[in-house]
Every structure is written in structure tokens, then in C-alpha cells.
């Protein structure tokens, strides 16, 4: 039986690493990886809590999240490639044409 506190602490740690990575890195690919880390931190928390309470809904939710994450990566990578083709660069700070 896994310790629920330990599982949740690990999930929180991974989430924070991911969030920090999204905020500080300028490479969109790395930002994507960080987002994936945040997704998976959430997945971990869902699985751990489902196990802890002995219920199935949390584990079902994880499949949903994985499916959405896959779709999001497909769209996101397509956008990054499109931007790279026009800008010859993928620094997210220089891409600010939507500035108000």
C-alpha cells in the first residue's frame, strides 16, 4: 500500500517543476514538455487519490487527460512548426504580434 502523502507530495513537486519551467523557459518545445509534466503530475494525483479512496472515477479521468494531452500536443506542435516557418525562430518572447 503506497503512502498517499508521499504520492501527493511527489505530484505537487512535479507540478511545480513543470509550472516553473513554463514560466522561465523560452523554448516552446521545452515549455511543452513542462506542460506534459504538469499533466502527468495531475494524473499521478488522480491515480493516487483513486487508489486511496478505492474508487474508479479517478482512474477513468486519467485516460481522458491523456487523450486530451495527446490532442493538445498534436495541435501545439503543428502551431509551433507553422510559426517556425514564418518567423525562422521559436523564441516565445519575440512572438508578440497579438500585443494590445
Amino acid at each position, binding site marked *: 500500500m503506497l503512502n498517499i502523502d508521499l504520492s501527493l507530495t511527489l505530484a505537487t513537486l512535479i507540478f511545480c517543476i513543470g*509550472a516553473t519551467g*513554463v*514560466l*522561465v523557459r*523560452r523554448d516552446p518545445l521545452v*515549455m511543452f514538455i513542462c506542460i506534459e509534466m504538469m499533466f502527468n503530475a495531475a494524473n499521478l494525483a488522480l491515480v493516487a487519490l483513486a487508489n486511496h479512496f478505492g474508487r474508479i472515477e479517478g482512474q477513468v479521468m486519467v485516460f481522458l487527460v491523456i487523450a486530451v494531452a495527446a490532442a493538445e500536443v498534436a495541435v501545439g506542435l503543428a502551431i509551433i512548426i507553422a510559426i517556425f516557418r514564418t518567423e525562422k525562430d521559436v523564441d*516565445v*518572447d519575440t*512572438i*508578440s*504580434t*497579438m*500585443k*494590445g
Partner: protein
Amino acid sequence: MTTLYFVLFLPLGSAIFIRSMAGRLSKGLSGGIACTSVLLAFASAALSFLNLKGMAVDQRSLILPIFEWARVGNESMRFDLLLDPLSAVMICVVTGVGSLIHIYSTSYMHEETDSEYARYFGYLNFFVFSMLTLVLAANFIVLFMGWELVGVSSYLLIGYYRSKTSAADAGKKAFIVNRVGDFGFLLAIFIIMGRFNSVNFSEVLPFAAAKLVAGSSLATITALLLFMGAMGKSAQLPLHVWLPDAMEGPTPVSALIHAATMVTAGVFMVARCHAIFELSPVAMTCIAWIGATTALFAASIALVQNDIKRVMAYSTLSQLGYMVMGVGVGAYSAGFFHLFTHAFFKALLFLGCGSVMHAMHGELDMGKMGGLKAKMPITYWTFLVGSLCLVGVFGTSGFFSKDEILYQALTSPQGSFGLWLMGTLGAACTAFYVSRLFFKTFHGEPRDHHAYEHAHESDSAMAIPLIILAVASLLISLLGLPSFIAQNFNGFDQWLDPVFKDLVRGADTATVNPWALSALYSAIAFGFGGLGYRWFARKSETPDRIYKAFSYIHAILWNKYYIDELYDFVFVRGFLGLSRWTYKYFEQGVVDGAVNSSGELARRGSSFLSEKIQTGKVRYYAGAVLFGAALVLLLLLRSL
């Protein structure tokens, strides 16, 4: 008394018809309709007059209700007409002289196009209607309405030649200067409304002494404010500036406005409201002195002017000064008699000027005339009659009316020697400028031979009104013979007696032999008239020598005492300067500043809210989302 409706509404109906058919009526038709309507109005006025005459003396004050205009609380404001001896005389003069001027105009204006001709007669009819409203008013509101209508229609007529800038300016000047006076008149009406709870003459004037205490400052203020209105319309100093400029209108208009109608309104109003004026000796003294000053002031300007219509304009000012002086010393009947005689002989003189101008192709400079006697005998003889009346040669109507005013100025309790002296000096000036005008125009050698060759007598439509007016000017003196010539023969005084019966006249302060005064005036008239003859009937170097010797005074008189320049400097430029100052500092600084800075504030505020946070940088957005999510989480946790 239904005839009174015809008096008032025939000219109005004709004006509306002619103007609404403008351009579709031939000249003969529009002129004919206008003349017929005023002639019929005159016939109705004469019938009303005779009707009134047939009544008992103490019944001679009829109120003709027309409609209720407005109801305020329990007070009813009605559009009513009042026919009493005063207004009966006025309607006869206005329609009588007015119809002669209409007939004269049909010929004088014949060079205009059909639609312009119709416009002219429409305005002329409307003017007659306005003046009739004014004199027939039974309360202050209708009086004020007529007062303003006269202002509007004088504006339209003076500015009739609308393609001329000077005419348009003169029209505006007349209207604006009159508005200054109207302002005072309106304030006086407010005081009366507040004090008497009524505007009807029948409820105000008989109770004036009870509600406004004699000699109180309220009575003085009311009287002076009323007189301010009269100063505007009757062109008294310092509101006289519009009248000489109003000569820009067609000459028959000058005859109508400046002889028989508009300018007499002020004197008429003072006579109508004498019950209020009588309560304030201070106001009466002011009025008398303003009148005397105007009489002398305007006569002195007329001494040197060369434009024949301008000489007549200043002469009108001067004669109005006499009328005002007359009412100011309490001699209402005498002042009103002068108004009556002046209406005839001044209309005659103006129409004579128009006839000369017509013959000389619009020339007005007497320096270019001369010798017209041979070419224009009818104009010459009628003009001579008018001149004799204006100078006041013994036996003419002008003599008896002016003589009476000066006599009263000397002897009445409110009169004084100073007033009389100014009036007499004015009479001397009058004799001189009239003879100068007359002899320069009609006698001597023609100065402009080309114009002289083409000069011709005017046709019958112009000549007949001249003849009628000349005969009338001589005969109306019979209506007002002073008592020292014929005892109990002063029909005019007796006729007006019911109107002025409430006056309590103090004892005369001076006694003079009226025959001696008459002799003095005759000597003045012949002396100064003869001087004019000597200097101007033949070629003479003397006038030029005198002008050169007194060039300083000549310049002052020629420039009309620089009053126009003074007004231009003080009011026009002062106002423009003030406007520019407020534009620069208040308008641009305060008003525009407030508007612009509120806009700027909104722009900056909204740019902070919407623009500055829209950086376009994904990481800021991500941070904001994270921060927001954390905040929501925190709140959720706290609420658990």
C-alpha cells in the same frame, strides 16, 4: 366698433396675401392690393374716429376684446384693442400718411422686379399693421408685441436693398440699438406686473398713484425704464445712432418710419403712460433734458451734412427731441400735437427728397444739385411748404406745435429757462439747415449739368401725395391754434382732454407774453433762413471761409460728434476684445481643457486596463493563469 377690426387686419391680410403670392402677382396687382388695403383701413379708422367723436366725452374709451391670449392662474392676458382719443388720432395718422406713402411708392419703386416689388409692399403693409397694433394696444403686453413687430418690420424695410452691405448693416443696427431700449421697457413691464398684478392699462394707469408712491424711487425707476424703451424707438440720445443710418432704406420707407410711425412710438408711449411718469419729477426732468439735448445736438449736426436724406434724418432726431422735451415738461398735449404735425410735414419733406433723388438718378449730395426749381415745380412748391412748417414760420402747423412746446418749456412747473434756451437755439439751427438744404437744392446754378439736363418732374402717383400732404400740413394748424390767438379754438387739446384729464398742473413758474415769443421765433426763422438764402441761393464764398475758419468745429459736426466712433471703440471693439480674451483663456483654457483632459484621462485609464496587460507574451499569460488559479485554489481552501 367693428370698423376697428378692419383698421388692424386689412393691412395684415394684404401683407400675408402679397407675400404668399410673391412673384406671381404683377406690379400693378400687388401695389394695388397694398394701397387699397391701407386706404380702406384709413376709411375704417376715420369711421372709428367719427364714431368716438359721436360719444359723450367721458365715454370715449372703448375696449374691443379679440381673444384671450394666455391665462396664468387667475390672471387673464388678453389681446384687446383700446380706442380712445389718443389711439384714434394715431390710427388716422398712421393709415392716412401711410396710404399716401403707399401710393407714392407704387411709382417710386417701379424699377424693381415683380417679386421685389411684392416683397416691398408686403413689408410696407406689415409695418403699418405692426404700428397699428402698437397704438391700439389695450395692455402692456400687446403694446410690447406691437413694439417688437415694429422693430422687426423696420429691420426688414431698412435692409430692403439686401444686396447692399450698408443697408443690411443699417437694418441690423436699427434692430440691435432698439433692443437695448426694449430691454429697459421689458423690465418696466415686469415691475408693473409685479406691482399691479395686471398689465391692462385700465387696471394699471388709474391706480398708478396708489400703487407706486409719488416721488418714490420705485416710481422713478419704473418711469426711467419705460423711457429707456421710448429712447430706443424715438431715437433719443444716446440711442439715436440707428436713425441716420436707417436712411439706407428706400426713401418712402424713411418717410413712413421716420415721420409718421415708428419714431413716434416712444412719444406715444410716454403720453399713454403719463400717469406713471407724473409720479416721478426726477424722471420727468431727465426726460425733458434728454429731449432738449437731442433737439440741439441733432440740429447742430444737420448744419453741415451734405446728404439731403441725412439732413432730414438729423432734423427728425431734432424734432423728436422737441416732442420728448414737450412730454418731459408735462405738456403732453403739446408734445403729441407736434408729433401729429411733424408726421405730415416730415413725410412731405422725405417724399420731396425722394422725388428729387428720383429725378437726379439716386443722387443725394446737395453739392451736386441746384436750380431744380425750374425742372420740378410741384416738388419745389410742396417742399417749400414742408420747409416752412419745419422751420416754424408763423401760421404753419409746425409753428404752432413747436411754439407751444417751447412756451410750455419756459412756463410750466417742470420747465426751465435752460430747456427753453436749448430749444430756441435748436430752432435757430433748424431755420439755417433747412434753408441751406432748400436753396442749395432748388435755387442757384445747376452744379452738375448732366444730371440737371435729365432731371424731370415726378409722375402723378408721386406728385399727388406731395400735394395732399402739403395742403394737410398747412390746414392742420387750424386744429391746434393756441389760446392767445383764438380762445377755445384748440380742438386738438379739447379732443385729448379725456386722456390727460387726470393731470394736475401746478402754477406756471414764469409769465411771458406769447405774442412776444412768437415774434422772437419769427425773427429767428426769418433771420437764419435769410442767412441761408444769402449764402446758398447764389454763389458765395462766405460759407467756405467760415468752414475753414472753424474747421475744428466743422470736423466735429461733420463726424456727428464721433458718437459712432465712440460706440465702435467701446462696444464693438470692447466686446470683440473681451470675446477674444475669454476665447483664449476661458474657452481654450478652462472649457476646452476640461473636455480634453477628461478624454485624456479616459484614454490613459483604458489603455492601462486593456493595452498594457496585453503584452502578447505567452509567458506573462501563463503566469497570470497560474497566479489566478492559485488564488482561486487559496480561496477554495480557505472557505472549506
